[in-house]
């Protein structure tokens, strides 16, 4: 029985397998329609989330499985003081696999240590969000056909943005990639990510505050939202939230085959006018997230199709 808590628990080969499986699901959805028949996914979301929970639920339904879900964190036994460990043990009696989102960092790991069924981390605070990274990787793969030799711009909140940290860790395992880190000074990539991931793997990177200057050299632009919930201080949030706004005019300087990704939801960091640009692939990324979650559920449940 295996869980997924951190993207780095998957080897490069396993990520390749998941991508191949997702591509096969996209090409032949009918093959997988009943692959999880009589299996149940429990979505335990202790923090508000629409898209990730719906993505997991849609993924399970498209595999022919069923979903157990709680109405909200406030109505769960956690509100009565039940521990994550006890919740995991209890839900193991009802479901075949768990997807858990929790505001506390490490909660899904505690669940995995206590559950007798696989646990998927669907986001734990500002820490890990491996299935978002899987969605990002499938999108890059489908748009670029490779994970090597890419210049990847990461823009916005690089300090608290967990998706950014996970994506850098995942892409740092491939050769020839270069990162351009675009953020306000206050939201720079933490030094431990630079040291432990980029410098340790001798990955080339530059840091800048200027999005427009960086745009022309990018193959991929990964935009992020400045997240209100990661700030203890409202003033800091208000000061930094409008640091970068991508508009159609700014994109005039970008490569014709640039791919613009965003983990969504966006607030105003990508203007709606960009949506019609063929380089904007963030809604494809949402769909890719569902396919990768389908592939992951199949892998963790050890379902052969």
């Amino acid at each position, binding site marked *: 029985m295996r869980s997924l808590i951190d993207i780095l628990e998957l080897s490069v080969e396993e990520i390749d397998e998941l991508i191949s499986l997702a591509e096969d699901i996209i090409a032949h959805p009918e093959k997988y329609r009943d692959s999880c028949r009589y299996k149940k996914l429990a979505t335990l979301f202790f923090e508000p989330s629409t898209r990730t929970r719906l993505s997991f639920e849609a993924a399970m339904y498209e595999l022919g499985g069923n979903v157990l879900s709680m109405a909200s964190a406030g109505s769960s036994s956690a509100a009565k003081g039940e*521990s*994550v*460990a006890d919740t995991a043990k209890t839900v193991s009696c009802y479901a075949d696999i768990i997807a858990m989102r*929790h*505001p*506390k*960092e*490490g*909660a899904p*790991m*505690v669940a995995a240590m206590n559950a007798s069924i696989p646990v998927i981390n669907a986001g*734990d*605070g*500002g*820490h890990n969000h491996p299935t978002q990274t899987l969605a990002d990787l499938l999108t890059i793969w489908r748009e670029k056909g490779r994970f090597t030799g890419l210049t990847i711009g990461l823009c916005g909140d690089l300090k608290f943005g967990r998706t950014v940290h996970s994506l850098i860790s995942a892409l740092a395992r491939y050769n020839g990639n270069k990162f351009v880190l675009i953020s306000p000074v206050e939201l720079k990539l933490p030094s*431990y990510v630079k040291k432990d991931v980029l410098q340790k793997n001798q990955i080339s990177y530059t840091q800048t505050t200027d999005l427009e200057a960086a745009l022309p050299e990018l193959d991929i632009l990964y935009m992020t939202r400045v997240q209100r919930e990661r700030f203890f201080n409202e003033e800091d949030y208000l000061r930094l939230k409008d640091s970068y706004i991508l508009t159609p005019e700014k994109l005039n300087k970008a490569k014709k085959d640039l791919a613009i990704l965003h983990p969504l939801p966006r607030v105003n960091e990508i203007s709606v006018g960009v949506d019609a640009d063929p380089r904007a692939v963030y809604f494809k990324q949402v769909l890719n997230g569902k396919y990768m979650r389908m592939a992951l559920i199949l892998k963790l449940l050890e379902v052969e199709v």
Partner: protein
Amino acid sequence: MKIDSIKNGIVIDHITAGRGMELYKLLKLDQLECSVAIIQRVHSNKMCCKDIIKIDADIDLDMDILGYVDPDVTVDIIRDGVLVEKRSIDLPTELRNVIFCKNPRCITTTEQELPHVFRLTDREKRIYRCIYCETKA
């Protein structure tokens, strides 16, 4: 300054000067019923100056705590006034309930029953990280 030698007990020697009291607290030596001496800033040819702790009883020492706080210490076991064993210390690979995670977003802040576990992630720089949230100790 003269401290009597012990007959049966333990001498923790070569403690980096200033860390003796920290070790005393973490090893909970204040809870022992035997005599314990902390000698601070003793002249040493090898280290310039050092701290020493003498415990007048043969107790089970938590070597992980010693290794975490000061891996260069030596532990001398004394029996009948004679040095019978000299133990060297290594950096522990895991610490359980020795140090506590300070990240307010960590699951350990709300789940009181969870053990606080840190793993050695960089031996050279002696970096330990919380296994749950990966925050540096």
